[in-house]
């Protein structure tokens, strides 16, 4: 099966999912190219897992379609399922099985058998750092090891696509770093889609971010693109000494300026200082006007800056309505 550069590896088109009264997905469309690592970012309950469950052929969409390598997940379910490795949310494992037997079991069902499987198990175990616990019963393993055994399972057949649902949940900070490095490493020759609600994860591991909120995509791009898109008219932040001024008085002065769109107080940790955020009406930079205003008002000017949203800000902004 040849994969031309033009056809995306994963193509999600107008995906809807209704669970009874609840609409978990409300028309999601995006595509992922071969070799990309894409982060699926959103607060809990945003619809990330639902989308991944449809992609992995576990549940059907209410409407819309997902194509993986050009094949529809519903029409060619079995063929599609051969092509990915899947780490479901919370890494479900058979707790009564020995880790080695578990990998052997999944490998056999994945069509890796005999000598090939015997060679492959130590390889993936090594990659995922579970070599030492292969002989242990899964139920006796720590959360971190379970997560990695489950990841090893997803890699056993050397899939072209990896679908990872919250791969770092429940791990300690060192393990998180290890797993992220591993994902980055795996992503060199594979297409990876991972879901998370942790921002740094996306920044560290992903080429592209899809932010999903209440079943809709609210942003889609590289971290840089998202920051640039937000940067067209960033708000100005003004910090002044409190000096007996009331924040309401300052706010009303700010709001009274013809160039100021809106203004609000921002909490500051320091006593004796106040901070305000001013959005200008036009597209122009309002810093100079803010400085002149502060001087005219004889406020003790401490700081004026433009606030470029970082990814966290973008995330918060796009997921708070």
């Amino acid at each position, binding site marked *: 099966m040849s994969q031309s550069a033009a056809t995306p590896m994963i193509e999600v088109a107008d995906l809807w999912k209704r669970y009874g009264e609840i609409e978990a997905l409300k028309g999601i469309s995006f595509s992922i190219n071969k070799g990309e690592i894409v982060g699926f970012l959103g607060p809990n309950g945003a619809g990330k897992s639902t989308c991944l469950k449809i992609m992995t052929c576990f549940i059907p969409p209410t409407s819309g379609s997902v194509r993986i390598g050009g094949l529809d997940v519903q029409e060619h379910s079995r063929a599609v399922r051969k092509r990915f490795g899947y780490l479901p949310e919370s890494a*479900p494992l*058979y707790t*009564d099985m020995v880790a080695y*037997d578990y990998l052997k079991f999944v490998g*056999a*069902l994945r069509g890796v058998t005999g000598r090939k499987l015997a060679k492959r198990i130590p390889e993936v175990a090594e990659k995922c750092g579970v070599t030492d616990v292969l002989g242990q019963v899964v139920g006796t393993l720590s959360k971190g090891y379970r997560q990695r055994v489950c990841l090893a399972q997803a890699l056993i057949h050397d899939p072209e696509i990896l679908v990872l649902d919250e791969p770092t949940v429940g791990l300690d900070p060192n393990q998180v770093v290890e797993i992220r490095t591993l994902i980055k490493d795996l992503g060199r020759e594979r297409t990876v889609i991972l879901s998370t609600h942790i921002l740094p994860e996306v920044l560290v591991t992903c080429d592209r971010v899809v932010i999903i909120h209440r079943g809709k995509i609210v942003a889609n791009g590289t971290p840089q693109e998202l920051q640039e898109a937000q940067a067209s008219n960033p708000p100005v932040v003004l910090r002044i000494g409190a000096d007996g001024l009331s924040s309401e008085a300052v706010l009303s002065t700010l709001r009274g300026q013809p160039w100021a769109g809106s203004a609000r107080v921002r909490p500051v940790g320091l006593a004796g200082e106040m901070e305000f955020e001013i959005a200008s009406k036009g597209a122009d930079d309002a810093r100079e006007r803010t400085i002149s205003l502060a001087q005219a008002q004889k406020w003790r000017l401490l700081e004026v800056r433009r606030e470029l949203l970082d990814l966290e800000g973008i995330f918060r902004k796009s997921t708070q309505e």
Partner: protein
Amino acid sequence: MGNIWVMGKKEFASYFASPIAYVAIAVFLVVVGLKFFIVDTFFKTGEASLRSFFELVPAFFVFYLPAIAMRLVSEEKRLGTFELLATLPVSDAEIVLGKFTGALGFLKITLLLTLVYPLMLGLLGAPDWGAIIGGYIGLLLIGSAFLAIGLMASTWTRSQIVAYILGAVLSSLFFFIDRILAAFFEEAKKVAEYFSFSSHFSNFTRGVIDTRDLVFFVSMIALCLVVATFSLNRRRWN
């Protein structure tokens, strides 16, 4: 075929990964042994037959085999492992048949361990081997049918307890239906007997292997497994 075998082996092994299987087998053997030696006073009657064995075991199976089958799917649903299993390139029918194969292995082990009774009879007297072989074939069939019922019930719920209760209720209904119905309507007896596991089973213990009984059990098993497959497949419906 390969996938079914892989799943069956895994299920079979997982029975013996915990002490529960050993306890279950031990309880079964003790109860059967008590009945055989103490209640029926095998040594006093001096009869070289397994009649009482073949009366007790199916009735015991009604409550024993649903316990063996209850965890097959419900536990996967509760642990969330079902999601992983279902996203492997394995069909729902293969999952059901694999699980059934594993449970069947457990039943075979249980029956194998009881072979000590016919062997003993053979040493001490001259039993009717036809009745014994027929009886064992009957036990394998009726046991498989109870397992299929239990497996079907296990696909309906995430709770093992609920799966057990549903499995045991359905099993006892099919086992005792002729006796239950006959108590109320004399005329329903003929129909009830057709659906009754016990009346189909009793032919085997006389050494009679009737195609009608074979067809009955095999189609009962097939029906339950098909329903189980549909019930797994339901998540794919909108």
